[in-house]
């Protein structure tokens, strides 16, 4: 761990703030909300431009310089639109769903360090908090599906619940590998312990976590719950105006939050040479987000049975084996150089992906309904 001067650390420790914790709380709440809104606007623009480039299009380039104001124009448009609630909708559930889907995403950012110790709350169970809180968004999505009184909404929401429940398991197992290597659940300690980025120490864990995160936040190719060719728009079919904007915001905010979590867990978070730490975190977040866009561009949407099969027959066994291998490495050779494990784990990841692909089959275990 590189030594950090005491003076720099004092400023960002909450106890040294005037008014004790309250100013700290207020400052970081504002920072988190502003950061997330700006990042979402950037992410929407970035995704549309990057996907356009990969498809030999240009993407939005009309509104403002290089089309930079396009997300803002879209937001203004959608906010000015009429808010239609279906007659058969469960009004309270329909009303609360976007809020409940949106809040957990903000909560994820409370434990992501922008610098050494610079975060709203340095929980010693940071990553557990993220796993627990990020699942709440699913309740919001299911409320939207149920409250809309529409079969397509309900189907989309059911698919989302199925996906999240399944993919939570390989995701948590991949996180456990990281936690074993770094020896802490606190996000700040995880970053501090990464002298080698965890993507090298846990390459399989990164792949598993990335896939599971994509499925969890419904990025394509796992965007089954809003599969527009099958379910019109899935759970937000009956949403319009500002509440639709909330769901749209949630979609990208979740992607950004998961990118930030991945960059914190696997890409050594705010650590990096030359540039300020918060900039490194943003750069890494956008890099991971770019990976998501990249995968989205090339992959067709999977079927629901393929989605479930991938979670239970491919990711889950690999995650368990990865966890065991990491546990053996950590227990048997605690003093060995991490670089040895880098080599071993990359070979292991390659072999396991090969074996897993060889044994992976869908379509077995047919259920007659």
């Amino acid at each position, binding site marked *: 761990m590189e030594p950090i001067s005491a003076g720099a650390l004092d400023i960002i420790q909450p106890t040294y703030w005037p008014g004790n914790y309250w100013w700290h709380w207020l400052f970081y709440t504002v920072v988190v909300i502003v950061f997330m809104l700006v990042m979402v606007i950037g992410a929407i623009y970035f995704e549309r431009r990057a996907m356009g*480039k990969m498809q030999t299009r240009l993407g939005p380039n009309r509104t403002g310089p290089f089309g930079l104001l396009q997300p803002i124009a879209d937001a203004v448009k959608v906010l000015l639109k009429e808010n239609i609630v279906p007659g058969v909708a469960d009004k309270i559930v329909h009303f609360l769903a976007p809020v409940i889907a949106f809040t957990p995403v903000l909560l994820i950012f409370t434990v992501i360090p922008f610098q050494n110790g610079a975060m709203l709350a340095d929980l010693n169970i940071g990553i557990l908090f993220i796993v627990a809180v990020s699942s709440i968004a699913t309740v919001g999505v299911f409320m939207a599906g149920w409250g809309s009184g529409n079969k397509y909404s309900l189907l989309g929401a059911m698919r989302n619940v199925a996906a999240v429940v399944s993919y939570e398991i390989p995701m948590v197992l991949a996180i456990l590998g990281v936690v074993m290597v770094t020896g802490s659940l606190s996000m700040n300690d995880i970053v501090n312990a990464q002298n080698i980025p965890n993507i090298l120490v846990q390459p399989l864990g990164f792949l598993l976590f990335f896939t599971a995160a994509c499925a969890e936040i419904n990025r394509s190719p796992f965007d089954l719950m809003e599969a527009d060719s099958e379910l019109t728009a899935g759970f937000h079919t009956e949403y319009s105006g500002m509440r639709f904007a909330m769901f749209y915001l949630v979609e990208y905010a979740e992607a950004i939050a998961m990118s930030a979590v991945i960059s914190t867990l696997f890409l050594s978070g705010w650590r990096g040479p030359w540039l300020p730490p918060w900039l490194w975190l943003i750069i890494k977040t956008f890099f991971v987000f770019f990976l998501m866009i*990249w995968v989205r561009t090339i992959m067709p949407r999977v079927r629901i049975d393929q989605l479930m099969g991938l979670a239970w027959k491919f990711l889950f066994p690999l995650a368990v084996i990865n966890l065991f291998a990491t546990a053996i490495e950590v227990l048997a050779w605690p003093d060995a150089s991490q670089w040895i494990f880098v080599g071993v784990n990359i070979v292991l990841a390659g072999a396991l992906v090969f074996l897993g692909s060889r044994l992976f089959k869908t379509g077995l275990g047919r259920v007659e309904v």
Partner: protein
Amino acid sequence: MKFENFGLGIVKGLSVAIQYVWRHALVTQYPEQRLNISRRSRGNELVWSRERCTGCATCAKACPQGVIEIVTATDMTENKYKVETYRVDTGYCIQCGLCVEACPYDALFMGYSYERAKYRRAELVQTNDELLESPQRPVSGYFHPDIAKKLPKQTLLIEKIVEKRK
């Protein structure tokens, strides 16, 4: 053994996608950038030349739709017909070009421009001066190879059209 089934397929797909980032986009920024249409394009709206027209009405007879209406009067001093009304209902015109082929005096051409949509049905009925050649209504090379030679070369999508910076 083929490694495409073991994750290499995804890597190949990713590498193909990233190559396209550095290629130029195959789209035209339409109102600012326009593609030249083919020289051999037949064109749409008729372009009529008042000087060359003798009012023989061959075009009206050739028209399968009967959309050309021509009214002439005799000009006794110059001993020739004077065209009083030349009216084409382009709403019924099928752009077959038979009138252009039929004209014995090369007084009729197909138009080369392609943004000729109208807001009102009545605007489609064009009379006299509305049919003359103008910068907005150039003539096409249909049935006139000498004109076709002078038209700009067709631009293709693969030719580089840079993004317009605002």
